[in-house]
C-alpha cells in the first residue's frame, strides 16, 4: 500500500464522485463543479502514473498532458459558466430538466 497506489485510488475516487455529481446534481453550476472534479481526478491518475518507483526517473510527458488538460478545462469551464448565466437569465431555470416555476412550460423547442 505505497503512497502512489493511494494517490491513484484517491484520483479514481475523485473521478467517481465527479461523475456521480455530474449526473445526479440538478443545479447547472454544481454540474460544472463536478466536471472539474472529474478532470482533476484524471490528472491525478496521470501524474501518479508518471513518477516511476525510484523517485528519480520522472516522465515529463504526463506533466505536459496535464498542463494542457488544465488549460483546456479552464476554457470549457469559462464557456460553461457564461452559458449557465444565459440559460438562467433567459429561461429562468438553473435546473436543466425542471419546469419553470411560473406555469409556462419549459418547452425546449420554444
Amino acid at each position, binding site marked *: 500500500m505505497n*503512497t502512489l497506489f493511494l494517490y491513484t485510488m484517491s484520483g479514481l*475516487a475523485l473521478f467517481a464522485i465527479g461523475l456521480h455529481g455530474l*449526473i445526479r446534481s440538478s443545479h447547472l453550476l454544481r454540474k460544472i*463543479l463536478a466536471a472539474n472534479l472529474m478532470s482533476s481526478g484524471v490528472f491525478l491518475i496521470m501524474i*501518479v502514473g508518471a513518477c516511476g518507483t525510484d523517485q528519480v526517473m520522472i516522465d515529463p510527458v504526463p506533466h505536459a498532458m496535464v498542463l494542457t488538460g488544465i488549460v483546456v478545462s479552464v476554457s470549457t469551464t*469559462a*464557456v460553461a459558466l457564461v452559458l449557465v448565466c444565459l440559460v438562467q437569465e433567459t429561461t429562468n431555470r438553473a435546473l436543466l430538466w425542471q419546469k419553470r416555476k411560473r406555469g409556462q412550460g419549459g418547452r425546449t*423547442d420554444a
Partner: protein
Amino acid sequence: MMDVMGFFDIVLALALPWLGWRLLASSDLFRAVVLFISLGLLMSLTWVRLQAPDVALAEAAIGAGLTGALFLSALRRLERLSESERRLEHAGKREEDETIPPEKRRRAKPVAYVLSLFLLVVFVLLLGWSLGQTPGAKGGLGPAVAGQMGQSGVQSQVTAVLLNFRGYDTLLEMMVLFLAALGVWSLTRVRQTQQGEVPGPVLATLVRLLVPLMIIVAGYLVWIGSSRAGGAFQGGAVLAAAGVLLLLANVTVVRQVPAGLLRWALVLGPLLFLLTAVACMGGGGNLLEYPGQSAGVWILFIESATAVSIGVTLAALYAGGRPPAPSAPEKDNEEGPGSGVDKGGKA
C-alpha cells in the same frame, strides 16, 4: 522522516475525495465554490508531493485561483439574477437555491439512481483492481525525452516536451484558449457596470503595489521556464491574476483599452506560434522543427508571446463577455425583440 511525509501523503490522499464529496453534497452553492477553491489548493500540494512543480504552479494559479474566480463571478451573476427574479415574485424567505424540496428530487428517478450508483461502484472497483495490478510502464517516454534533451534547446524536461517534442499539442491548446475567449465574447456582452464605483483606498493601493510586481514575477516565470519549473502557462496565469485584480478594482484604465488592441492581444500568442511553426518549414524542416541549435531562442520567443496572450485571454474570460460598445449603449441584442425571423415555430 519518511514516515512523517508518508503520513502526510495519506492524509492528503484521503482529504481530496472527502473534500470532493463535501463539495458536491453541500446545500449552499457559495460553500461549494469555496470548498472547490480549497480543493484546488490541496491539489497543487499533491502535485508538489508527486514531484510535478510545473503542474503545481499551474494548478494553483489557473486550477484553483482563476477557475475559483470564474465560479465566484458566475455565482454573483446568478445571485443577482435570482434576486431580480425574487423581487418580481416578492417571495418572502430568502430563496435557497435548492427550492425544490429534497424528497421531490429524490423521488424523481429512484430506480435510475440506484442503478447508476451500482454501475458506478462496480466500475470503480473494477478499475481500482486493474490499476493496482499493472505497474507503471517503466517510465513511459521519460527515457526517450531524456535522450533527446540535448537537441531540445532547453534544460527543463516539461518545457522541452511542451514546446518542442509535442509543440503541436500546445499550438492546438492555444487555439482552445482562443476559442474559449471567442465563445465567451460571442455569447454575452459585459454589463455596463456603474461607472462611479470607487474601489476604496486599500484596494487601489494594493493594485498599484501588486500589479507591477506580478508582471515582473510573470516575466521571471517565463524566463526560468527553460531550466526549472515555470513557463508560458504559469507566467500567463500570473499575468491573468494581475488582469483580474485590475478588473476587480474597476480601474478606469481597463475601461479605455481600445477593442482593436484587445483583439490583437488575444490573437498575438496563437498567431505568432503558428507563424513560427510555418517559418520553421521555410528552412526545409518539418512543421515546428526549429532550425539548427537556435531552438532555445525560438522557444523563449514563443513562450513570451503566448504568456501575454494567455494572460489577456484568461482575464477576458474572467470579465465574462465582450467589451461594452464605447458608442451609445445599444440595446442588449441578445434579447432584442427583432422581427423574430429566427424565432422558433409558433407551435
